């Protein structure tokens, strides 16, 4: 028999008998990729659109400033988060001193505070009219002029760093902890002192992890809208918002957004690279390193330093928020918070549900029809997390207005006239926008738990006569239930906190907690903004607590 002739024929004709999951999954993944890719594509093409001079105006007057601001902000935040994050990680992972166990989880808590909350708390606290400055003027008039202004470049950098350093802390602590005892013993036996050990072994080995954390920080910094808006510090995100709502020029907004997309894609490339490196460096040799016991001044210094960081990044903001709530809640409570809460919950619930379903479908499609095409489609589908909300908002609006245009034209042929836009500005597009932005959060949770279901389990079930749907019901869903729950909680809370996307796509009247915070803080009403802020922080604590639990379980 000529084996080469037969090759290929068999593979095709198997379809006559067997249900081969060829196209269903791919078609689905293609659909998701189009929904995610289209807004990005339209934003990118707008680079060459004609904006009737607004773009020229922006370029001449703004662009240089925006670029400089973005660069200074990014560099400053990267430097400060690296300092906070790496030193905290080194101390808690490899040293022993009073309070170490507490700090190893407590320093993650600031993850629950959205950057814009951190921003308005500190502006409220340290502003000229705030309690600190007032106190100084009354009791220490000599010192008052020396208090640095919070509304400055340094202020934004500090506030963003306080909110974002936990990313660096979390990843580099993992990096330090994964360096096993053996390698440290080997280094000591080669004659390295503790200081040399840090700079020649520990730091280089943890570098991919530190880098991974810094990449996340950079992504968040580029995407940040709420915090810089509080400080009136102009970056691309605020410029996009102003171009649209100030100049009413979606084209100019898109052109700014396209520049931001380019930056985000560059960061994304770096992220992929760093992830590969992290895998390469993940070498545990059983026991984790024995911690160096700090004594005397060193131990005191470590405790004070981390205690100060914890106070500034979490305790003080929380106390201030609660103080404001206590001050304001009596007058505020009748002001229609019910609607705010229900809108927030409704949007977050709807968005999380949609995201969960799409993530499930995508994960199963990837499982049933693997291959390079599937891999690249799902990578495209997960791109949204690197995109700032402002960019995505602009992209969605472009897609929707294009669609409405086409729909009106199409219906016009049949003599049907539309009274208004079909999709643009309706509440139905918001869950889709959230899905695009947060799909990767849900997908990662699901696919990591689905990855633990080995392919041979599927095959085992099939040899026992169990079909595709029964397999999903009896094996897959029970095994990924926890991933599904975690994923939807994470997405739900991310949506609650999302400010620019909600702000720019919501229909009139659909205010959420985050939108309310934006409105109140732009009027300087810190006390009133504290009530929705506390609600958001409380919700944000849920995933952080989950994370801490997980970390503790691994440590034990």
């Amino acid at each position, binding site marked *: *028999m000529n*084996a*080469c*002739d*037969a*090759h*290929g*024929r*068999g*593979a095709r*004709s*198997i379809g*006559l*008998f*067997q*249900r081969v999951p060829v196209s269903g999954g791919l078609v689905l993944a293609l659909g998701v990729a189009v929904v995610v890719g289209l807004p990005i594509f339209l934003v990118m093409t707008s680079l060459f659109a004609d904006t009737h001079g607004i773009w020229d105006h922006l370029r001449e007057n703004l662009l240089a400033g925006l670029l400089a601001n973005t660069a200074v902000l990014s560099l400053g935040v990267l430097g400060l988060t690296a300092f906070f994050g790496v030193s905290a990680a080194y101390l808690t992972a490899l040293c022993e001193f009073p309070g170490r166990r507490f700090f190893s989880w407590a320093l993650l808590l600031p993850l629950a505070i959205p950057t814009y909350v951190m921003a308005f708390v500190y502006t409220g606290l340290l502003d000229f009219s705030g309690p600190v400055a007032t106190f100084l003027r009354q009791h220490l008039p000599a010192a008052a002029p020396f208090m640095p202004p919070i509304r400055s470049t340094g202020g934004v950098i500090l506030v963003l760093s306080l909110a974002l350093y936990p990313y660096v802390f979390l990843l580099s602590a993992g990096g330090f902890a994964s360096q096993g005892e053996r390698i440290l013993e080997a280094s000591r036996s080669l004659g390295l002192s503790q200081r040399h050990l840090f700079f020649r072994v520990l730091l280089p080995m943890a570098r991919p992890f530190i880098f991974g954390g810094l990449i996340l920080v950079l992504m968040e910094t580029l995407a940040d809208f709420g915090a810089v808006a509080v400080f009136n510090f102009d970056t691309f995100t605020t410029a996009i918002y102003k171009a649209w709502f100030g100049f009413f020029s979606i084209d100019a907004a898109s052109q700014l957004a396209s520049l931001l997309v380019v930056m985000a894609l560059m960061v994304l490339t770096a992220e992929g690279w760093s992830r590969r490196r992290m895998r390469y460096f993940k070498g545990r040799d059983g026991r984790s390193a024995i911690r160096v016991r700090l004594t005397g001044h060193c131990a005191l210094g470590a405790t004070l330093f981390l205690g100060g960081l914890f106070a500034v990044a979490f305790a003080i903001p929380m106390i201030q928020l609660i103080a404001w709530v206590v001050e304001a809640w009596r007058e505020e409570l009748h002001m229609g918070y019910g609607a705010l809460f229900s809108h927030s919950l409704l949007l977050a619930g709807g968005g999380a549900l949609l995201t969960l379903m799409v993530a499930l479908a995508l994960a199963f499609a990837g499982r049933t029809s693997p291959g390079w095409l599937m891999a690249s489609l799902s990578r495209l589908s997960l791109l949204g997390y690197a995109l700032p909300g402002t960019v995505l908002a602009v992209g969605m609006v472009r897609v929707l207005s294009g669609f409405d245009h086409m729909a009106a034209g199409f219906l016009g042929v049949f003599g049907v006239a539309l009274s208004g836009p079909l999709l643009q500005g309706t509440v139905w597009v918001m869950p889709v926008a959230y899905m695009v932005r947060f799909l990767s959060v849900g997908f990662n949770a699901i696919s990591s738990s689905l990855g*633990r279901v*080995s392919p*041979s*389990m599927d*095959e*085992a*079930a*099939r*040899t*026992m*006569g*169990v*079909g595709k749907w029964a397999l999903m019901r*009896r*094996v897959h869903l*029970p*095994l990924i239930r926890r991933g599904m729950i975690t994923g939807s909680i994470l997405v739900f809370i991310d949506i609650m906190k999302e400010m620019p996307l909600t702000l720019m796509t919501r229909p009139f009247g659909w205010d959420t907690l985050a939108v309310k915070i934006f409105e109140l803080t732009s009027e300087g009403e810190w006390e009133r903004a504290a009530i929705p802020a506390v609600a958001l922080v409380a919700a944000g604590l849920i995933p952080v607590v989950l994370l801490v639990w997980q970390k503790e379980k691994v440590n034990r």
Partner: protein
Amino acid sequence: MSYLDVEAITKHFGATCVARGVGFSLEKGDIGVLLGPSGCGKTTLLRMIAGFESPDGGAIHLDGRALWREGRGLAAEARHIGMVFQDYALFPHLTVWENIAFGMSGVSRKEMKATITELLLVTGLKGVEKRYPHEISGGQQQRVALARAIAPKPRCLLMDEPFSNLDVTLRESLSAEVRDIIKRFGITALMVTHNQHEAFAMADRIGVMMAGDILQWDTPEGLYHAPENLDVARFIGEGSLIAGTLTPDGDVDCSLGLFTGMAEAEPGEAKRVHVFVRPEAVRVAPSHAPARARLEASCFRGPGRSCLFRLPGGEGVKVASHDRCGLTEGSSYGLCVAEEGLSLFLEAGGRVSR
């Protein structure tokens, strides 16, 4: 037609050929083993029988029904073939009992309970049925996987390296146990392994597989004592290869001596042949034996000694010696060979029949 019939299966992955016309057949109730080095295509062949891969050509029949013929096949879930996976593939969210019950559909509760209870008893899993897979040992997991595959009463059982995740001591005892269980339920089974001890412990029939082809399909004894070609002889057990000449009369002359009547007389030139000797066919004999050799190394093996002798021509001979009295390395001894323990192969590798 036999119970399980595999005919001329071919299969390519891209440019690599993993099955070149493989065929064998297995009688009902027998245990077959595919034995071969890693990468020779055993797993792929097994997966084609199970229905997870489609052959490029050939046919597979089970119990008179076509599983695969003329480029078409039955879906895996319709084949009624049980499979024990290398990683067991137990469902982590189900207890031992639920795992075993997973594939049993269309039977009454009472019958299901009776079957599972019997399986638990036979596999020695009684008492752990309420535990989850991660709460039992590797050997127990292996037996759960076996019980789960047997429970739906499959027409045939496939096992892919079922013992490779266990430690060596467990492997030996478990393979005998698994054979007992399979025989007790009268199941026709096909196992794949690269370990010949496992193969000998389990098999009624063994197929030696290399580079996508079955070289010999035979009983374990046949495989050991009458290997059909040089590759099989070298792969199974131990032995030494010695150059010799086959005369037209059918006698063989080599440095171990002259052996008469080893092949049918065949007029023509004398031919060069390989003489293959199993270690246990050679005896250390008194010094008047036909061949003499120097003891180069010897190593205690419990039941006896494994010795390496060097013939004057430079060829090495492995000998399994059962003498309690010591042999001194470096001294010369006589070697005496039992004729039945010899196999002859032509230069090309084919066996010379007697």
